[in-house]
């Protein structure tokens, strides 16, 4: 049972996350899917760190988490602002920035 399986798992998680981003219209759910994708990446990093035998992977995963946290904060702030002014959290209604 080689470590590839973990990689296949992360690939699956990543694709599901991506599909989620494309399918769902509620901003927060989309945001959760993004988090899911980030987690998938962390998994890959950790797995490779184990495969390569040095801790760099984990360091990067750690940094990914930090960045993810920052991103969540700002993302949610944006969603709240949009909600406050638009009374909706659906992505499709914020479509003024177009041709």
């Amino acid at each position, binding site marked *: 049972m080689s470590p590839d399986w973990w990689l296949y798992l992360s690939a699956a998680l990543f694709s599901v996350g*991506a599909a989620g981003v*494309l399918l769902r219209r509620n901003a927060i759910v*989309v945001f959760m899917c993004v988090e899911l994708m980030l987690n998938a990446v962390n998994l890959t990093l950790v797995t490779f760190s184990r495969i390569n035998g040095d801790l760099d992977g984990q360091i990067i995963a750690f940094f990914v988490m930090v960045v993810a946290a920052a991103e969540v904060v700002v993302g949610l702030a944006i969603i709240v602002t949009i909600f406050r002014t638009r009374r909706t959290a659906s*992505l*499709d209604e*914020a479509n*003024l*920035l*177009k*041709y």
Partner: protein
Amino acid sequence: MSVLASQALAQLAAAPAPSPVPASGSFSLTVWLVLLPLIGAAVLLLSGRRADPWGHLVGVAASVASFLVAVVLFFSLQGHAGDERSIGQHLFSWVPVAGFHVDAGLLLDPLSMAFVLLITGVGSLIHIYSVGYMSHDAGRRRFFGYLNLFVAAMLLLVLADGYLLLYVGWEGVGLASYLLIGFWTFKPTAATAAKKAFVVNRVGDVGLGLAIMLMFATFGTTSFVGVLGNADFVSSGTLTAIGLLLLLGACGKSAQAPLQTWLLDAMEGPTPVSALIHAATMVTAGVYLVVRSGPIFDLAPDARLAVTIVGAVTLSMGALIGCAKDDIKKVLAASTMSQIGYMVLAAGLGPAGYAIAILHLLTHGFFKAGMFLGAGSVMHALDDEVDMRRYGGLRKVMPITFVTFGLGYLAIIGLPPFSGFFSKDKIIEAAFDKGGTSGWVLGTTALVAAGVTAFYMTRLMAMTFFGEARWAKGAHPHEAPSVMTAPMVVLAIGSVCAGGLLVLGGSLQNWLEPVVGQSVEVGAHTISPTVLTLITLLVVGGGVAGGWVVFGRRSIPVTAPAAGPLVVAARRDLYGDAANEALLMRPGQWLTRWLVWFDGRGVDGFVNGLAATIGGGSARLRRWQTGFVRSYALSMFGGAALVVAAVLVVRL
């Protein structure tokens, strides 16, 4: 018989033309011949209105001074022995590029001396005449400026020592004739005639240009010495080509067969212009070119045949047109065209004909210029009326003009004591002596044309000076002022005795001998000269009688009567203009319009179309930004997928 003659000629022409002796002593004045009128023209044209009061005097002075220099050079040339009478004066190196080394230099030899004398002599007389003729014209200074420019260009043409410098004079003369024909610029007809003259001349110049190029390609030089000296080392095919191209150039300038349409329209210019340029000097440039390139034509028999054909065709066309025209200047112009046809015919008969051609050229210079000046004074008297049907009975009112014009008339129809008889009769004789069928054909055309010339000249005299007065109301013709009649008298005297002076004792022949070789008398005449002279006199008498019967006795209607197809054709210049328009002008205009459309639509259309497609494409691409975050996410994800795929493909 003709074979014998041509061998004699070839052997004759073998003697290389004498290489010019460098100019020294009085001959260094040669350059002043050209410079004087050039300076005169520059002064007149550049000085502006200030020079109006004395402008014309400067013009006349320049021309007369140049004539005096010519006379001085003539006598110093007389001093030299026969064979070193060609003096070369090197001026400066003009176009020194690798193999193509052309120097500007002048060549004074008997042939060019004859022309210089004619140009400066007749030129000065006409300058004096136009003082009177143009006295009340505002642009008189400009007129004299252009006349001086013409004289300078013509002198450069005849004095040039190489074909390229001759070409400069050639187009310079064309420019001067353009300026002078279109002198009264406010008249649209004059402007069009001037443009037509220049363009048709330019077509001729293309021929001359190509000839010079061919010469450089074969001889490596364009100077007379280099080209004419080595003529016999070159294949006759090239020589024929050069000859034909030179002929095309000559036709352009001397208004011969294919390119003759411009001469009759050139009558739009003031009469002194017609007299000087379109009678005496410029139109004879073609003959000068043919005579100067004698050695080339001697070795290219079919080129020479072409020259004679062109000459014969033009002389008959000119004679025919002369009979039908009512405008006095147009009649004289047509007669000039036919007389030059005679000269070209003579020049095409080989060495025998050169001297006779120049002889006829000189005598024609006198009597035709005299007649044009006469016509000028008639027009001047009847306030610029040109239609002969409004003339009639002028002999009593304008005696001097009548007498001078009459002498010119007698000279042109070839009455024995007058100059025309000596020169034209010799041409007819030389034409017959050419032998063979071509000899007979050319001889008879010349003979018949002499008769027709007599006919239309008598018609002119009858309509103008005899019969009852058909003047316009309120016209009271008076004799021209003395400043105009004096030159006419001198020219009349010239047309009377010039022929005899030059021919008796063969003075002109031996004068031109070093340049054109002896005019060989050997070879049996097809018709004995005396019999031929009698026949010509008979034909001329018939022509005069015909003319007198038709126009002398009957009253002449004021408006031109309806006439048969031949006369209508002659009135329309034998459809020369119509042919040019149909073949060249109209297709040219159509092509220009189509090309303008093509350039706008085709080439430009393609370029603008390219721009439009790019613009349209970008507009369509712009619609992809739908504003929905999720479609952007989709395209991003698609992009990522592509990148991963690419990485995989590369790695596999």
